[in-house]
């Protein structure tokens, strides 16, 4: 059973589809990257998986559960969790509240919640140090860690990340990449949207390239040699 299995997904806004007939899959415990130039529709794919776009057709299943017609708040309850473009923390609340809100559907399972909180703090010691600060008081890199922590708190079958490196300093990007690698090593299933090919190849087992709303390339990270990179770079423009 795959962590994510998408078949024939089209989705868009208003009258137009912006992604067309997408098929992709993420095996259990696999990290997969979705690369593509600006406006290719990467965010739209993630939003469609999360159920944030009503206008979607096709089949999306997460660990065998059909989520194609599920409302967002149910998909969020353990099936899928998202680190969105721009992080979107709840800025007027504390770091710890942000994390605990991520585990909303586990609120009655105190033991599991505390265990998850521990695992977030283990991955990001800084976050533990700042747990009672308001989220606004954190730097961009620290906020990104909180956003990843919030995603981890729901203990989802599938983790989605939308350009987590955006706006971060090189050192913060390296830390973040290490965190994602750790998550993969812990057996999490990850779909990562990135524009930084190096980061995607470092973290992920396989890649898809999206362009103009269609999957135009797919392959294993190891097989992406110099030629492949040139090809990807050409797509990324």
């Amino acid at each position: 059973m795959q962590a994510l299995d998408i078949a024939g997904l089209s989705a868009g806004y208003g009258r137009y589809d912006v992604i067309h007939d997408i098929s992709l899959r993420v095996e259990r415990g696999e990290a997969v990257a979705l690369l593509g130039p600006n406006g290719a529709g990467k965010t739209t794919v993630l939003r469609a998986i999360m159920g944030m776009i009503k206008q979607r057709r096709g089949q999306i299943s997460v660990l065998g559960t059909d989520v194609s017609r599920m409302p967002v708040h149910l998909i969020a309850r353990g099936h899928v969790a998202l680190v969105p473009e721009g992080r979107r923390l709840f800025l007027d609340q504390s770091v710890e509240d942000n994390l605990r809100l991520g585990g909303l559907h586990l609120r009655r399972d105190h033991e599991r919640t505390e265990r998850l909180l521990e695992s977030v703090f283990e991955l990001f010691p800084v976050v533990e140090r700042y747990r009672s600060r308001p989220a606004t008081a954190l730097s961009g890199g620290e906020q990104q860690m909180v956003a990843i922590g919030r995603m981890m708190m729901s203990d989802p079958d599938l983790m989605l990340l939308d350009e987590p490196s955006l706006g971060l300093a090189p050192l913060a990007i390296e830390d973040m990449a290490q965190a994602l690698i750790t998550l993969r090593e812990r057996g999490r299933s990850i779909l990562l949207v990135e524009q930084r090919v190096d980061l995607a190849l470092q973290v992920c087992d396989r890649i898809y390239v999206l362009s103009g709303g269609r999957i135009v390339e797919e392959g294993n990270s190891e097989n992406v040699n110099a030629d492949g990179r040139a090809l990807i770079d050409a797509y990324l423009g």
Partner: protein
Amino acid sequence: MLQVLLSGLSIGAVYGLVAMAFAVVFYVTRVINFATGQLLMVAIMLTAGLSKAGLPDWLSISVGLTASTAAGVVIYFVAVRPVLRFDRFSFAWLVSTLGVAIVLQSAAAIIYGPTSQGFPKLLNRDNLVIGGASITLQELLAIIVAVVAVVGFEIFRRRTLFGKVGMAISSDPEMASAIGARVTAYAVAAFAIGGLLAGAAGVLIGPITYANPYLGDTYGITGFVALMIGGIERPAAAMGGGLVLGVLSVGANTFIGSQASDWFPFVVVVVVLLLAPHGLFASGDALKRLASGIGRRTATLKGAN
């Protein structure tokens, strides 16, 4: 002076409850329910009608409050949810909630007739004298209810998980649903609380105003003015605006003339919006900002001269 303060706070508590009814709904849904005044009227009319029909006062009041709460929820499903489902960013609720206000008001006028009816007196026969100023128990009750409403709401918002989810919905509803929050359930709850607060304001003011179908207009507008004075972003700020408005209105009646409270609130709101566009209590240090605002503007004026 103390008399002005006490009378002002008690009427301000009622304005504040209406303002809070607006603000709680706005906080969760970003919608202004223009039928909020009519929810107050619904509670008053039903309570008065049932009491006249011979029901005990406490029962009439309970039914009145239940009705305004339920009416709030109905407004959400009839006038708000359909237009937001069609377009999340539409402003059609402006028209649809105003429409509901007119329908409720006309219905009440048809059912009860346009004249005023008596309202059950709760506690207002007894007076309490504090330092030379007197306050009726009914007025004291209004202040107590207002304090309980604000303190209760703030504790709920900051200390409970439900409150924190509400805060999350307020700041980013889409992201809140992506962490599993049932945004619709919260919207329903907000409209219910709004109905209850407006109803409570009605029950508290009824013995003074008597029951009249057109009360909704009066108190809806005053409550909205209080909301603008205090700040729309936080329900506690709205209550603050109500109290300020109450004291200033009673002060105007006492020191300017008996009709001054008709126009004075509008002067106040204009001045407030010029000096503190987001309301007096929009953020924690509002008074500091107000002071610096005055300072800045006087400096500009001096510079211009």
